[in-house]
């Protein structure tokens, strides 16, 4: 009898691990929504777009960092000719270690990525502009599912009788909230965290004793070595080594988590990037869509 109930419990546990997982065709695990800071923009203005990923509980998508597995969302923008889109600003990731000692940096729950957009100076006043993004992502739990969505947003370029940009309050709140969650610039004072390169090329990060520190390098950063063990510590000190043959700049996110439990994140770059590099604007126009309508 004891054995039977043991078997039953084991069977139920096993079912919990694998049996009740939804099938791939149960509907999307992630909903992506596009937000725009302004509904009406001015020629030459910089405005912001955001994509919010709502990830079902227990599932994760991939942050664009040095990950062992998965793929960060592919966001393929198609903007009107002459419009420029800048570098994606992602919120800080969390570390996800899976069986086989595989380390990934992932996003769970609600995660919003921000993009600056520059309206061309010669945009026709009163014209409409369709912003389009083909989004594709991999979402995983104990299995992975590829999902995609086409996101669209229609903006208007301010005309003669409406010369000022118009914000959209719901979107504005969403974008402001997303911006508050982005990694901050490294504090010049060294408080609450400081980072410096050693002579041997390793990165030393310091915070108050006992603070949990994490370093997550971006995908295109100089390759960090052995992140599984050296990417996080709970002593307030963290030393990250890099591939000496790799000459790319170091870029990533440092996260600190003190006793209060509230995490803060900072973006570290070496050498420091210029504001132009940070904005990362690329002009659109190679593959224009029929977006500019006549007034």
């Amino acid at each position, binding site marked *: 009898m004891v054995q039977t109930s043991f078997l039953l419990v084991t069977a139920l546990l*096993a079912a919990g*691990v*694998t049996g009740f*997982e939804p099938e*791939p065709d149960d509907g999307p695990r992630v909903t992506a929504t596009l937000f725009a800071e302004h509904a009406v923009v001015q020629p030459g203005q910089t405005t912001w777009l955001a994509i919010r990923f709502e990830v079902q509980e227990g599932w994760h998508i991939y942050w664009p960092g040095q990950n*062992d*597995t*998965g*793929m960060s969302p*592919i966001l393929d923008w198609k903007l009107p000719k002459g419009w420029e889109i800048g570098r994606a600003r992602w919120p800080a990731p969390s570390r996800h270690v*899976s*069986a*086989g*000692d*595989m380390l*990934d940096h992932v996003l769970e729950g609600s995660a919003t990525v921000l993009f600056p957009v520059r309206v061309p100076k010669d945009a026709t006043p009163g014209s409409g502009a369709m912003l389009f993004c083909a989004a*594709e992502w*991999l979402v*995983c739990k*104990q*299995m*992975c*599912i*590829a999902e*995609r969505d086409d996101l669209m947003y229609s903006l208007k370029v301010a005309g003669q009788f409406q010369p000022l940009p118009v914000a959209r309050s719901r979107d504005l709140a969403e974008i402001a909230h997303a911006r508050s969650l982005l990694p901050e610039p490294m504090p010049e004072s060294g408080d609450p965290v400081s980072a410096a390169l050693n002579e041997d090329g390793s990165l030393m990060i310091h915070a108050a004793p006992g603070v949990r520190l994490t370093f997550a390098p971006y995908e295109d950063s100089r390759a960090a070595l052995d992140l599984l063990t050296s990417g996080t510590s709970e002593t307030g000190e963290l030393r990250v080594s890099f591939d000496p043959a790799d000459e790319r700049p170091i870029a990533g996110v440092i996260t600190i988590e003190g006793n209060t439990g509230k995490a803060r994140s900072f973006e570290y770059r070496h050498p420091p990037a210029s504001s132009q590099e940070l904005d990362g604007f690329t002009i659109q126009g190679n593959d224009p869509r029929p977006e500019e309508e006549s007034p």
Partner: protein
Amino acid sequence: MISRILHRSMIVALGCTVFAAGAQAQLSAKPQQAEKQIKEKIQQVERDVDSIVKSMKEAKKARIDAPAPDFTLIDTEGKEHRLSDYIASGKVVVLEWFNPQCPYVREHYNAEGKGTSTTLEKEFAEHNVVWLRINSGSEKSRTSGKELNEQFRKEWKITGPVLLDPEGKVGMAYGAKVTPTMFVITTEGIIAYEGALDSDPSPSKTGEEIYVRSALKSVLAGETVEKKQTKAVGCSVKYAAKARPRG
């Protein structure tokens, strides 16, 4: 068994060549001496194959340009496959880490058997290339098990076997982190390519360059593979919780 026979016949064929050459060179020498030299040559050929197999058995961790770690795994039909048997019999071997429910794997298959993976497998089969798919998912993973993998093997018209590695030992030895991860192994038992199947990182389309095709062409032509290593992108291999990489 078959490989053993092939192995022997190769040596006999090589032995004949050696004998012909040896006979010509040794016309004036004593017959016993010539025979001894031929025996030595034959042994050398045999030792070469043996030393290839030996180096594969000794290899613990897969590295590019180094011997491929040997393994024996059971396929979905219960048949045993030993990597070094294929190499000893003169095959070039492609390893593909496989999970029939991973979108990055599914991308390369379809019910017509005309996906990138099955097409390549057929294309190179006549050139002595064997394609071994390996599922290193744990028994608890919903993507492993012989029934599921056999079902997809049939559905996708896969010619070669799907090998099961539920303890993840082979996956760990090869450092396979995602599906698909590809390896191309030469007839010398050397890993000539490791990485992605093709150049596109998304699961929705196949890239312009099929890395595995380029690697196979180079290997078969006896040339160095231009891109020896690429980053494999895909789903994590669903290892058993106790699976640990080898040092």
